[in-house]
């Protein structure tokens, strides 16, 4: 029996231009074959899945199951990643599940113009991520020495005040470094988005995350940007003891925001 015979739910991945509707290939959730549903000015890449596997009850049952959710996020991304290397797409936020083609069309209906415009804006473009981390906060060792050498309460308080203003200055310097790096990178990209720094995780980064940004670049020909990234790293980050991390190419997750 074919997947589509049993399927009673649509899991949607992304929007593509109608002229690209025949291009998406490969498989989605549970190995189901990807296909597209034409919805006016755009086409939606979907997988035919079953309610029993990915219906409301399943999502709610796993709402507090980070491993299941992480696997779903990974699977969602895997499909988008493979497609974005070949064609322009507008990622949909997970989970986008629909009863049938009619309910999917109803959801897209009315926004077709906007989505088509967004796809046009993203033509031939992908996203690259840049994160910058601070090095070890400087001066820890000397602080201790200073505190030990304080001979009076007043001494101690003035040292504390000096230390606090030094820390504020260091924070301003870090913010300034992030701003300068970002301005330079933004100047060589089509568009840029600055996100909140990620929370530190147990297996996560060391140091303070100073910049968490995404840049929109041509799918082929991001070499100029990469050269700028290397230059920013060499001339701004390394001297400041900061660490730069480049990731990508990503599907343009951060650049579909100009939609309702």
């Amino acid at each position, binding site marked *: 029996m074919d997947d589509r015979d049993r399927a009673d739910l649509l899991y949607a991945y992304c929007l593509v231009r109608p002229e690209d509707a025949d291009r998406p290939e490969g498989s989605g959730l549970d190995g189901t074959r990807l296909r597209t549903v034409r919805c006016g000015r755009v086409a939606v890449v979907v997988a035919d899945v079953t309610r029993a596997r990915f219906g409301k009850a399943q999502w709610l049952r796993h*709402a507090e199951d980070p491993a299941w959710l992480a696997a779903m996020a990974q699977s969602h991304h895997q499909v988008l990643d493979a497609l974005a290397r070949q064609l322009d797409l507008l990622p949909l936020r997970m989970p986008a599940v629909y009863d049938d083609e009619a309910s999917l069309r109803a*959801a897209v209906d009315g926004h077709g113009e906007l989505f088509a415009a967004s796809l046009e804006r993203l033509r031939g473009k992908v996203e690259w991520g840049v994160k910058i981390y601070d090095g070890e906060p400087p001066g820890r060792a000397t602080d201790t020495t200073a505190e030990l050498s304080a001979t009076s309460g007043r001494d101690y308080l003035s040292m504390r005040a000096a230390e606090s203003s030094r820390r504020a200055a260091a924070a301003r310097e870090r913010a300034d470094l992030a*701003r300068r790096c970002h301005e330079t990178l933004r100047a060589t990209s089509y*568009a840029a988005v600055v996100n909140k720094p990620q929370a530190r995780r147990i297996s996560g980064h060391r140091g303070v995350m100073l910049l968490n940004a995404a840049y929109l670049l041509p799918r082929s020909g991001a070499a100029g940007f990469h050269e700028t990234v290397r230059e920013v790293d060499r001339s701004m980050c390394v001297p400041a003891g900061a660490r730069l991390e480049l990731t990508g190419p990503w599907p343009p*997750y951060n650049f579909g925001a100009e939609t309702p």
Partner: protein
Amino acid sequence: MTQSVTAIDDVALVDLVDRVIDGGVVINGDIILGLAGVDLIYLGLRAVLAPAHTVGPSRTAEEGVAAEGIDEEAAG
């Protein structure tokens, strides 16, 4: 500097979930799940990102300062 990421295994889960949570377009995918259901799922996804035993954003004071340094949302 870490160079170009090409394989999914190389993509840090945190970067991926970050994008899947906050990125992309929303087109009434909540019709089936309901707003409350979607909220629950996002709470769960944020837990994937959070340090152990903490749900929700967990930023240090210093990260707050850095974040305030560049607060623009988009440009281009």
